[in-house]
């Protein structure tokens, strides 16, 4: 566990620097099983910062969200850095954004936190119900201890953690300027068994499943907004000229939207699972992303968000690429 004192001191030390504009981290949420993201500009506010297994949000999503207003005549553009706290999975988002040259490495200060896993609010709500006050959670090697409404509760690690944490290959940040805790060991390997299991079905069954899932979609675009890799200034789904998807929420447009979303993350998705977490109608969005992640790995031996020197997958090619289905 990260000592909150150490974390806050480090944050203060960074925020008093002249070349730092703001720091993105987590603070205690107002209710429930999730922390809240915190954007801090002044060192005196750094006391709210925490890190515990409720910190599920990916702060790397916020770096690219900043609106770039035109600089007034005569004024200098603000080139100060943004500091960001990241878990292992979040750091992959930063690596991938660096690969895509969304910003330069000098523009960010990365505070890495080796992470033992974060809890899934859906699983927690199913087990302990809704809570009106923030929940305190601590985690040791195989047990999660929660304080829900003043009562101490325990659960096994597998029962409460996010699925991504149970197959986490990168618990330690892959890019960081400061590491706030000792490195932890890798927990598991990912064999993509769930993807292989889904693929065994005939096309008609697959479509029956997706038809049900996609018809639930209300097109709130939360999955897009929360995604650290979706940082286009104008998104293709809200573009009107040319209009790629119509805005009606019928099965045709919803399917097209979800294919587009998954497609635009092909070879870019870093599996932070934020899209699925925020989905208000519980669409298993990651099933599509994981399918592509696995295929990208199998076909092109490529893993996004691991190497800052890598080329983006679809902006590069290998003359020996597989072409088994091409006539």
């Amino acid at each position: 566990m990260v000592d909150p004192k150490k974390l806050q001191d480090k944050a203060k030390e960074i925020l008093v620097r002249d070349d730092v504009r703001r720091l993105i981290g987590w603070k205690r949420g107002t209710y429930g099983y999730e922390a809240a993201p915190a954007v801090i500009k002044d060192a005196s506010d750094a006391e709210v910062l925490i890190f515990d297994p409720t910190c599920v949000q990916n702060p790397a999503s916020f770096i690219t969200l900043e609106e770039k207003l035109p600089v007034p005549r005569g004024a200098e553009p603000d080139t100060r850095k943004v500091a960001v706290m990241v878990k292992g999975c979040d750091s992959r988002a930063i690596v991938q954004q660096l690969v895509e040259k969304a910003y330069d490495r000098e523009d960010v200060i990365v505070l890495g936190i080796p992470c033992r896993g974060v809890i899934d609010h859906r699983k927690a709500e199913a087990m302990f119900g809704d809570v009106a006050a923030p929940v305190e959670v601590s985690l040791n090697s195989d047990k999660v201890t929660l304080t829900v409404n003043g009562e101490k509760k325990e659960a096994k690690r597998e029962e409460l953690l996010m699925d991504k944490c149970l197959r986490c290959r990168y618990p330690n940040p892959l890019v960081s300027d400061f590491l706030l805790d000792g490195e932890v060991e890798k927990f598991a390997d990912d064999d993509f068994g769930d993807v292989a299991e889904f693929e065994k079905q005939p096309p008609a069954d697959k479509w029956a499943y997706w038809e049900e899932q996609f018809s639930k979609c209300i097109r709130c675009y939360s999955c897009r907004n929360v995604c650290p890799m979706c940082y286009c200034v104008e998104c293709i789904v809200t573009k009107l000229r040319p209009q790629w998807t119509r805005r009606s929420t019928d099965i045709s447009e919803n399917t097209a939207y979800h294919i587009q979303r998954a497609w635009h993350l092909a070879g870019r998705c870093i599996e932070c699972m934020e899209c699925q977490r925020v989905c208000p109608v519980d669409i298993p969005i990651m099933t599509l992303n994981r399918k592509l992640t696995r295929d990208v790995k199998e076909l092109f031996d490529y893993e996004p968000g691991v190497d800052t020197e890598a080329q983006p997958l679809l902006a590069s090619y290998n003359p020996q690429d597989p072409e088994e289905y091409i006539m």
Partner: protein
Amino acid sequence: MSEEFEPNIVAFLCNWCSYAGADLAGTSRMHYLPNIRTIRVMCSGRVNPLFLVNALQQGADGVLISGCHPGDCHYLEGNYYARRRFMLMHKLLEHVGVDPGRVNMSWVSASEGAKFKDVVEETVTKAKEAGPMDQFRRRQINW
């Protein structure tokens, strides 16, 4: 009245090889199936994989993308990019439950009129097997 299902195929042919290949098939008086509707593009690398989703939405029962053989691209590397993209799009559509026979890609050079004929035949056969595309076709609303 027993009408056999005739699929609509949208074919994206590259200007330099496949379109010329299709032209050669025509000038050589080869008979190829009339199910395909050709869209000429400058390079197979120009075809956005979302064109394919859009075609399936708008009434196509199958799609064919055809370009120069690897190494022969007029723009040197366009078809290499296309190959990666369509490989992944093919896999993604398969995962969503679209019959894999609806998405076809081929390399046809300007001198392969006979091959173009075979490719079209195979594409149409596969689309016929898959049946009418009714999974996520846009419904026409008559106001």
